[in-house]
């Protein structure tokens, strides 16, 4: 003789209870999109985008970026000041200053209409 199977009442699930996994996935995607938007906004507004040579269009110059300025020594912040330490600073500073000033960066006028040939001969 078979034992009677207890009949249990079917729990009534609301719409959100039935779709809780979809809700979880949706919220996760929403948070991910929000964080991506925030990080992209920071990337653009902070000036990091301008320093990112891995962006498309910069592949021709990526290899020329200075990745290690190890020869640019830190001057020690502690210790007594005497002739030797002052001479050391002078020597370090003069060396780096001459390198920093060696290039007259962003000089010239490469965007002038004449250079880009955007002006008619009458305007030249």
């Amino acid at each position, binding site marked *: 003789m078979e034992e009677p199977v207890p009949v249990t009442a079917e729990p009534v699930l609301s719409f959100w209870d039935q779709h809780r996994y979809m809700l979880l996935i949706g919220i996760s995607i929403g948070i991910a999109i929000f964080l991506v938007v925030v990080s992209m906004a920071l990337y653009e507004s902070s000036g990091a985008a*301008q*320093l990112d040579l891995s962006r498309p269009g910069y592949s021709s*110059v990526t290899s020329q970026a200075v990745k290690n300025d190890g020869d640019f020594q830190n*001057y020690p912040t502690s210790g007594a000041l005497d002739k030797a330490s002052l001479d050391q600073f002078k020597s370090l500073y003069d060396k780096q200053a001459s390198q920093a000033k060696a290039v007259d*960066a962003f000089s010239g006028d490469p*965007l002038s209409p004449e250079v880009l*040939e*955007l002006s*008619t001969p009458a305007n030249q």
Partner: protein
Amino acid sequence: MFIVKRLIIGISLATVVSGLFFGIVAAQTQPMTDAQISQIKNNCVSAKSTIARLHANDALLRVNRGQMYESMTTKLMARFNARVDSNHLDSKDLESVTQNYNTALETFRTDYQAYEESLSGALNIDCTKEPVTFYDAVADARTKRSRVHVDVIKLHQYIDDYSAAFDAFTANFYKLSGAGN
């Protein structure tokens, strides 16, 4: 002598900037002729290629020069000022030049960002359909690039100023300590 030198540099900078500004404004106020619009349409593809190369080269320049300008203050100026300060000596002049240098460096960063955004905007314009907009965008980028160059000149000037302040500090230090002979 020092003041005269700075005055001459200041006047030269003002002349260059105002010359460029008025030149560009004068160019923009002139109505564009059909011939010029046609010239822009014909040459804009090669112009965009030149601008794209300049865009990449200037980005490289910004990264490499920016790194060097940054190191000048973080690895030398600030560290020497700290050492002078830790020895209880007067570093007011050195700190003043360093502060000016840092302000100029911040302006350089901001101006370069504005220039790059302007140049990228120009590159994104379809110059065959919008030749006048393209021309104006390039003119805007040109003005902003000249500002970045002025910032670079200022940074070089402050590098010299720090050197002069260091020499003055050293002379005073030797005078007070009786060393250096």
